[in-house]
């Protein structure tokens, strides 16, 4: 599991931010090279995360039976109240 601050969304956001800064230009050479380095590393990491992904499925234990029992009780009350013949 990725750490909370290293989710795909967070890393992708960092990449966008670096790209935005770079495209705005007017940066010292050293800083733009640093941004580029970091951005390229982020691209690699994000691509690795995507390539390794596999859908996970978790099934919750619900109270289907309990819910249905409650429903049956409500319905029988309703039926009694409206018993015709």
């Amino acid at each position: 599991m990725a750490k909370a601050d290293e989710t795909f969304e967070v890393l992708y956001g960092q990449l966008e931010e670096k790209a935005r800064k770079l495209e705005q230009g007017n940066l010292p050479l050293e800083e733009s090279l640093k941004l580029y380095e970091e951005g390229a590393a982020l691209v690699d990491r994000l691509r690795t995360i995507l390539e390794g992904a596999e859908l996970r499925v978790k099934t919750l234990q619900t109270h289907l039976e309990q819910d249905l029992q409650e429903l049956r009780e409500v319905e029988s009350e309703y039926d009694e109240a409206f018993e015709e013949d």
Partner: protein
Amino acid sequence: MQALSVTAIVSFLREVLESNEIFSDLWVAGEVSNYSRSAAGHRYYSLKDPGAVLRSVMFNSAMPGMQLKDGDRVLAHGKITIYPQRGDLQFVVDFVRPEGVGILAARYEELKQRLGEEGLFDPGRKRPLPRFPRRIGLVTSPTGAALQDIKNVLTRRWPMAELVLAPAVVQGEQAAPTLVGALRQLSREPGLDVAIVARGGGSIEDLWGFNDERVARAIFGFPVPVVSGVGHETDETIADLVADLRAPTPSAAAERATPDLLQVQRALAVLGRAMASASRETVGARFGLLEGSVARLRRGAPSTSELARDVRGLLREMQAGLERRSATDRARFEGVSARLTGLDPHATLGRGFAIVQRADSKKVINSVRKVKPGDRLNVSVADGAFWTEVS
């Protein structure tokens, strides 16, 4: 035994009737007779069948335009009370439909009108979906085709996610309480980003659980955005209306709730390329600047020309190295997105532009001729998206 006053016993009976859940939310089928309309717009009539008569009233605020006439066969919704001044049992009607539409359609219309007036369907309260969902909740049958369809879509489109299934009965009248229970349980799951409520196609009776007020309120109160995918394209359930986004089918719901892996990979390639070219430009600009200085140096002081040549050679080397490296990077990125040549769309959004799409079909709107008042639109801006309505 003590004698009660008339007021006391009539008030007591009235209280008993009005506090009863069944009598205060009731559908009655019958024939209209003795219909009259007062100057204030109240409509008084009797509902009758061969065995009995029920005095009824629709006050002026209830369906103001609705006119009835003697002999109409109707389904009426309202509550039973007592009119103390006359001691009459009275059916206060707030919604009436011709009997021919059937009780399910009438109930659907009554609920739709009432929840609509309450604001449960307001476009303004629809929440934007997360861009990269990690945990996706799903309420559906554990044995239905919808679950398999959704798994297939997620595996193909966004396998990054974890699907959290809260099983429910999705068939007929039994469905509502289990849907509510599943939603409630799912709402307690930590870290959920979005939820899908889904069921495959069926008759109006089959889909009935999704037209239940309790289900509608559970969706409305759900802590994260809900995407509905119930039935086929043509079925519009109350659950669809209250959901943050309505998709026509379970598969479509899974598609709306997730980004497309391929597109994300392409976007990554575009971002990488944009960065490479931006950093090349920076280096190029510096190089030009330095070259100018070197030229000036050479003109002003011939003795430094050797030094200048060295500096220029070094700079050339440096640029060539950078070009080589960005070319390698670029080749790697372009392998993923050979077809994409445009700019990163998010950079465009950052300058204040927006992408406007139809809320239902996601078609991009590029002309005023493609919208009409009342259309719901999705507007994507730099840091997210929201819904709006054309007026």
